[in-house]
């Protein structure tokens, strides 16, 4: 199963990267969601997959009896999920407030903080092709 999951995670990463490269900040954040999901799955994967044997010590027993799933990655994922949620929630609200104040969701149009030395149009100096600028 790990092999299947490895390919799935790869696909999730590919999808998330494509979203991360969007100009729309919301889509970018969707990419972040996908990415953190993929990473959590990676933690799960490297710890080894075990079907249907949760690491719970049965009532009346004092040790966990094999087979059991590796509990450590689970604990790590739990922490990672919660942390990821905190960061993401804040970022979402940040983007929302950004839209409220600046009036755009276009990551490439955020030019208040930098760089004012650059001519506004970018003058073709940027590495991103400019043909899509007019659409904004």
């Amino acid at each position, binding site marked *: 199963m790990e092999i299947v999951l490895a390919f799935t995670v790869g696909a999730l990463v590919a999808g998330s990267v494509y979203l*991360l490269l969007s100009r729309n*900040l919301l889509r*970018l*954040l969707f990419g*972040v969601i996908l*990415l*953190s999901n*993929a*990473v959590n799955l*990676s*933690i799960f*994967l*490297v*710890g080894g997959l075990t079907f249907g044997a949760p690491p719970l010590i049965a009532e009346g027993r004092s040790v966990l009896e094999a087979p059991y799933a590796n509990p*450590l*990655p689970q604990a*790590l994922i739990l*922490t*990672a999920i919660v*942390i990821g949620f*905190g*960061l*993401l929630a*804040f*970022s979402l609200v*940040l*983007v929302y*407030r*950004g839209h409220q*104040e*600046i009036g755009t969701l276009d*990551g490439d149009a*955020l*030019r*208040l*903080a*930098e*760089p004012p*030395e650059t001519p506004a149009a970018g003058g073709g100096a940027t590495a991103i092709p400019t043909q899509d600028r007019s659409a904004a």
Partner: protein
Amino acid sequence: MNWLVAAPILIPMATAALTGLAWRSVPLQRALTLAGMTALLLAAIALLLQVQHGRILVMQMGGWAAPFGITLVADMLTAIMVLVSALMALAVAVYSLGDIDPVRARTGFHPVFCALMVGVGGAFVTGDLFNMYVWFEVMLIGSFVLLALGGRKEQLDGAIKYACLNLVATAALLLAVALLYGVTGTLNMAELALRVRMVPNQGIVTTIAVLFIVAFGMKAAVFPLFFWLPAAYHTPAVAVQAIFAGLLTKVGVYALLRTFTLIFTGDTGWTHGGILMWIAGLTMLAGVLGSLAVRDLRRAWSWQVVAHIGYMIMGLALYTPLAVAGVVFYLVHDIVVKTNLFLGAGVVRRLGGSADYAGLGGLFKAAPLLAVLLFVPMASLAGFPPLSGFWSKLVLVQAGLEQQSWAIVAVALVTGLLTMALVGRVWAEVVWKPHPDGDIAGTAALPAGQRLALVAPLVLLSGITVAIGLYAQPVMDLSSRAAADLLSPEPYIRAILGEPPPPPVLVGELP
């Protein structure tokens, strides 16, 4: 059992909780923060005294022996970093008395500032890689909030870019930690040091190491992963800029320094001499050119943050005792100077009404004392002797020349020269040039309390810079010992795992 090891986390965290409880009262929050940061400083001093004779303090959290629980550990390097960051925290806390407006204070500046210090301290003292990830995240969310606190347009603009890029970095770091666990089965850094050598496939270890370079490198703002820094660092409140510039990227450097002396030492030709070396050179050049390209004091300093990260990476890349000592020294110097520069820029902006060179000037006439206080960190930044920056550069240059790494030394020197160009220009434009609006008021025009809060940190930090410059021996000595400890980590490992480490099993030679 020494609770001092946990102090860098527990003291600011308790302070954060208390200031959070006191969120209705700004004066109370301020008092609590000052008290907390003072306590942190005292604890840091005590910690340094404890480790100064080569002792390594270890605390197994919850009493669970390594590698099963989380280990906190303080060696010389940790103690130095904790002390310097505690000093900065106190300085910035004092500065914030005169800088943070009531609105920011009421909406959580103090607890979040303390939480940021929790993250910084945690990253320094932890001996567990996943735990380090956690503290990095604490630092990250703290920086997100502090960056956006106040909600001005350009702040939000910068914060959005900062957040988006750092979220990716964070994911990369977590992935790297997970992968390392996947090949070694442990998260304890001391045990990792032993176990990475036993992985049958050393190629995958190197790959993970490179992933760590990228992940930590992003935190450290190295080329070409620094975009978030110049995009955001100049936007928040001055106190926030200062603590960011002083500490955040350096934590990334610390993490690189720790992991790439303790854990990833199996393929130094590829990781250190190869990737890190290139990164170092390009970071220096990109940073310093960036600082010359802008016409705004805070942005110039932001770019300088990047440039000087390059020096530290260079030291790590050279990977000799002298070079690593140089990195430690550089860390100490750079943290103090960068904090000072941003604080100074804040006062300059307050007096001159702008951060743009064009809108500044007249300081030499209006505020000579301030000019002196600016001169010290600027000259130190440029590496003029006998200030702290000179020694750090000297050590790295010497280490590079010893290794006959001509190219990186040349880049370092050119970067130093361009930094001097920047400093000369800033001095001429900001300090010497008459202010475009005619004469401006000096610091005397500020209310007395505010003046004290704003200037006292500058005096303290400039004093440190001068002191280190004139008498570099103590810091250099500590740095050398820290470097020696880093390069022979057996005592560190033994202190944590409690038993003589088994002889490393080397699995074949690399192709």
